[in-house]
């Protein structure tokens, strides 16, 4: 053991393969970033591989001239914060009672929730229900129907069950109601799982878009993901809300493609900024959730 160890056979193959896979994973993000900061005129000719061609922030300036993006960004942020707050609040207030052993009908009520993971009414009955509440074309349609995810409910419930009962009993003895106990005793000792579940919900709200396609019709309620999709306009057939050609001659030269790239970067930027902090809790949450309970 004291001697210098020779690498195991396959060492280079393994590390080489993983470096290649890591590169393949990260490169697409890099390419889009480089494209977005390239000089749009040069970028139109292609050939961006590792470094930008020229340097210009024109595509970002151009992106901000479209007021639609501010609206969409604002709607997405509203959905993110209000939605996640309600998600966590409702999940915790449901998971806490059902984590208490003496709670009557605990098992049937838990099964009642579990069954929704196996069977659902489907897209159309759900749409008609949301519509009958008058939520269609409001941002609430993106928040209320997904108020609690059964999956996250089980993660929280299992975690609450692992908290020693004595902790809560002492609070009860002092005359605390369960609501006080939950927020002053249980939540403070459950911060890791609450952070994880909040992140699950947050990532869901920021990234999901099909519900917005389904429920949102007017442009003023559009969220960022839907804005981005209509802008990317893959088919070149539905050019409804893509960037309008500018009247300024100089601006007209700027490639639409560059603006698309800038918008992609802008839409993942918040996620990339908090990613290093987020990843740890997210992984922890997945692991807690995987414990069979």
């Amino acid at each position, binding site marked *: 053991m004291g001697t210098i160890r020779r690498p195991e056979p396959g060492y280079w193959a*393994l590390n080489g393969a*993983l470096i290649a*896979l*890591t590169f393949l*994973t990260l490169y*697409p*993000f890099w*390419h*889009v970033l480089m*494209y977005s900061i390239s000089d749009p005129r040069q*970028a*139109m*000719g*292609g050939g*961006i*591989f590792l470094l930008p061609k020229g340097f210009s922030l024109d595509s970002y300036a151009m992106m901000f001239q479209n007021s639609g993006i501010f609206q969409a960004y604002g709607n997405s942020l509203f959905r993110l914060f209000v939605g996640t707050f309600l998600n966590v609040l*409702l999940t915790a*207030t*449901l998971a806490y*009672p059902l984590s*208490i052993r*003496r*709670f*009557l009908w605990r098992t049937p*009520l838990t099964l*009642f929730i579990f069954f929704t993971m*196996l*069977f659902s*009414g*489907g*897209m*159309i*009955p*759900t*749409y008609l*229900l949301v519509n009958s509440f008058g939520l269609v074309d409001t941002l609430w349609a993106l928040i209320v129907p997904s*108020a*609690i995810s059964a999956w996250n409910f089980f993660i929280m419930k299992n975690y609450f069950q692992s908290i020693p009962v004595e902790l809560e009993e002492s609070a009860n003895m002092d005359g605390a109601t*369960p609501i006080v106990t939950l927020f002053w005793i249980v939540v403070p000792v459950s911060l890791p799982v609450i952070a994880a579940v909040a992140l699950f919900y947050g*990532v869901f709200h920021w*990234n999901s*878009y099909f519900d917005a396609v*389904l429920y949102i019709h007017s442009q003023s309620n559009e969220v960022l*993901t839907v804005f*981005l999709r209509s802008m*990317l306009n*893959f*088919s070149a*057939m539905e050019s409804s809300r893509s960037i309008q050609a500018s009247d300024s001659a100089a601006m007209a030269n700027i490639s639409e*493609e560059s603006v*698309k*790239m800038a918008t*992609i970067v802008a*839409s*993942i930027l918040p*996620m990339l900024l908090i*990613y290093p902090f987020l*990843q740890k809790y997210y*992984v922890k949450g997945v*692991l807690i959730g995987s414990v069979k309970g």
Partner: protein
Amino acid sequence: MRARTQGTEEIEPLVSQTKRVSQADAASQVGRTRRTLDIMKKDKWLYFMALPGLSFFLVFHYGPMYGVAIAFKDYNIYKGVFASEWIGFENFRTLFGMSGFQRALRNTIIIATYQLLFVFPAPILLSLLINEVRNVKFKKFVQTSVYLPHFVSWVVIGGILYAILSPTTGVAKEIAMWFGHGDAVANLMASREYFRGLLITSSIWKEAGFGTVLYLATIVTIDPHLYEAAKVDGAKKWRQIWHITLPGLRTTIVILLIFNVGSFLNAGLEQVYALYNPIVYEVSEILDTYLYKLAFEEAKYDLATASGLFKSTVGLVLVLLTNVLAKKIDKDSGLI
């Protein structure tokens, strides 16, 4: 009254036993109900707390289950679910006869099968690779990198793919040019031959990395003595992976497989809807996108609901079947 009391007193010895028993019974029943009520009263705050959450599931999950009645009705938007007429399985008969539905079902099965064959094993293979890395920092770096795409929306991935694969400015063109095919780059996103491959590849790219979380966590729990014993017996890396690591992962693999099979007919709505376009509808229209169009472009709510019910039912049956099978093969695995 007095007489009656006297009377009962007279026969008291005869009935006393049974009477007392039934009285005790009744008393205990009353007591139990009272105790139940007492518990509920004491825990009224708990019930109060659970009420919003339970109502949510009742309204937004069980409510739509009631709505599947539309699938068996000649649904008329103006009449509503109640007043529309029952027509039995007519909607299903119509649906299965429609070429659009047949195409969507075929595509769904093909895409879902590919996903099960190629996307499902990808994180297992990747975890085996990552697990062999000895340098902790390099391992962390690889993990952090491969997790990243999981946090990005399918719409964004659609945009990134569009940039990479663009026949005029994309990297795909550059690579093709190195191999001397400069002008002959196909637009993969608008190609019927390659579109399904693109769906599968992008699924692997997005989720394989993050999928390793559970597998790597399971590998850590495998008893290291097993590996030492195997080494003593002269087992090389491959044999150790085959005989120790993979069996150690079996339970995790089975549970994840059950979940995957259960969502078999989903085939990835957000992904397909984000990536596809009219040119490739032929090979990529899945049940979910088809029922969306049935309802919102053709206003055939009843047919769309029937299609959704078909999908949900098949999903439920598949979960239960896989679960039974998994338990038959290995008692400890399985979801329920």
